[in-house]
């Protein structure tokens, strides 16, 4: 009986963290290059319940699990829709490839192709980190910039650098760090150059968050949370009745 209270509480806690994840997905519904997070839940390990009677014989009744917990989250690498912006410094990456970015914490990766020029004419991301070319950061010295579908950055018609496009063995293992940056982990494996990768110039890849999916998930979360609360309450009431009558069960 008491066990059931904790089971219901674990359900409520789990659903609350799921709402946190949905809230973050929906807050980023208009963030270019954002990948929605998916959550994996797991049941607590099964316990074997046995009947013990006076004959000291234990008769197994069956297995019972006592709740669920959030086990893992991972970014879903599906592509978002493309928006044609007409801006020469916007690029949308096609397929599961990433731009390499130079940050104070080391090399990071991003899907946000809304590039701009930094104070010294360097090609930077929206958050201001230099974008890496195959030979280091790319310097743009004139207002006449064109990015080709193979990642070549042309300034005044001459090659100024080539965007470094990379891929990962398991991109769902990438860690999000905020500012649209992703970091490689042991699970994702190191970044590997993706020589054949293409990009769509003058386009932005929008967030892959699907509002319908998230709204449905949110309703499910709400109702599951409510159901768990009811389960908890029912047990609370049963306990109360048991205490009042002096007998449980």
């Amino acid at each position, binding site marked *: 009986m008491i066990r059931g209270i904790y089971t219901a509480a674990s359900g*409520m806690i789990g659903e*609350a*963290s799921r*709402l*946190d*994840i949905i*809230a*973050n997905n*929906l*807050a*980023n*519904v*208009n*963030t*270019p290059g954002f990948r929605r*997070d998916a959550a994996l839940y*797991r049941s607590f390990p099964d316990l074997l319940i046995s009947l013990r009677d006076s004959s000291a014989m234990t008769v197994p009744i069956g297995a019972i699990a006592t709740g669920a*917990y*959030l*086990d*893992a*989250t*991972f970014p879903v690498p599906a592509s978002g829709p493309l928006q044609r*912006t*007409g*801006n020469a410094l916007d690029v949308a990456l096609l397929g599961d490839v990433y731009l390499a970015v130079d940050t104070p914490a080391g090399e990071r990766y991003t899907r*946000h192709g*809304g590039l*701009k*020029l*930094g*104070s010294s*004419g360097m090609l930077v991301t*929206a*958050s*201001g980190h230099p974008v890496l070319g195959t030979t280091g950061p790319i310097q*743009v*010295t*004139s*207002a*006449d910039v064109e990015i080709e579908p193979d990642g070549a950055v042309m300034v*005044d018609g001459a090659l100024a650098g080539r965007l470094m496009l990379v891929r990962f063995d398991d991109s769902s*293992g990438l*860690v*999000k*760090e*905020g*500012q*649209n940056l992703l970091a490689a982990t*042991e*699970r994702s494996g190191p970044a590997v150059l993706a020589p054949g990768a293409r990009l769509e110039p003058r386009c932005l890849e929008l967030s892959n968050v699907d*509002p319908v999916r*998230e709204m449905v998930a*949110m309703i499910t*979360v*709400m109702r599951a*949370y409510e159901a768990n*609360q009811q389960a*908890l309450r029912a047990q*609370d009431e049963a306990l109360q009745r048991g205490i009042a009558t002096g007998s449980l069960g």
Partner: protein
Amino acid sequence: MIRALWSAASGMGAQQLAVDTISNNIANVNTPGFKTSRVDFQDVFYAFLRPVDDPDDLIQVGHGVVPAAVRRAMTAGNLESTGNELDLAVEGKGFFRVSYGATGLVEYTRSGAFGLDHSGRLVTADGRYLLGAGGPLTVPSGAVAINVGPDGRVTARLENGSISNIGQLQLALFPNPAGLEARGENVYRATTSSGQPAVHSPMTGGAGRLAQGFLERSNVQLIDEIVGLISAQRAYELNSKVVQSADEMLGIANNLRR
């Protein structure tokens, strides 16, 4: 849960900024030389929660969204023929140089709707002088017509038919025009982000050619703005639903104990 409330609130704030930016773009749809802006978003800090059984697994929960930058699209607007001899448009990437007084701070504009002041100087609508190679350009009093060549040479035809040379217009080119600081009144100032201007005569150094009798319209694309507005408004609504859900769930938790 409390995270969900704040994440959703950050989403509402961000979409509000997007609506603000879009409404400014739409308000300036008929402002000559106006350049449309767009807000770029980025996700923020992720918290790591340790899984119970496998510390190598990842549980990351984000904290919403923040604006990363408001970016101005420096694409050219359409040229509109006005027939006014003092309306100038730049076909290219150059900016007109203007300032209050002959020695004031030089500012930059794409809006070429000029007029004359009481002493015959070429001025913008708010009284800044249009600067040529030798400072403000002054039209002599007896002028009947003003001609501005595609190369920026400004001449006046006098009553007696003779041609008087007024000056040479010059345009400024920036390495990163999107980094200019908008000051209102259609003018921009140079910043460390825009870089220092290179001053060229029209038709040299990539500054573009001048078109007399034309005005550059704003580069605001109404359809894009309206679609952006719809998207921002719906995203705002979605985030408000999350606030509502988080609130209801907190209410449910509060009702555990009657």
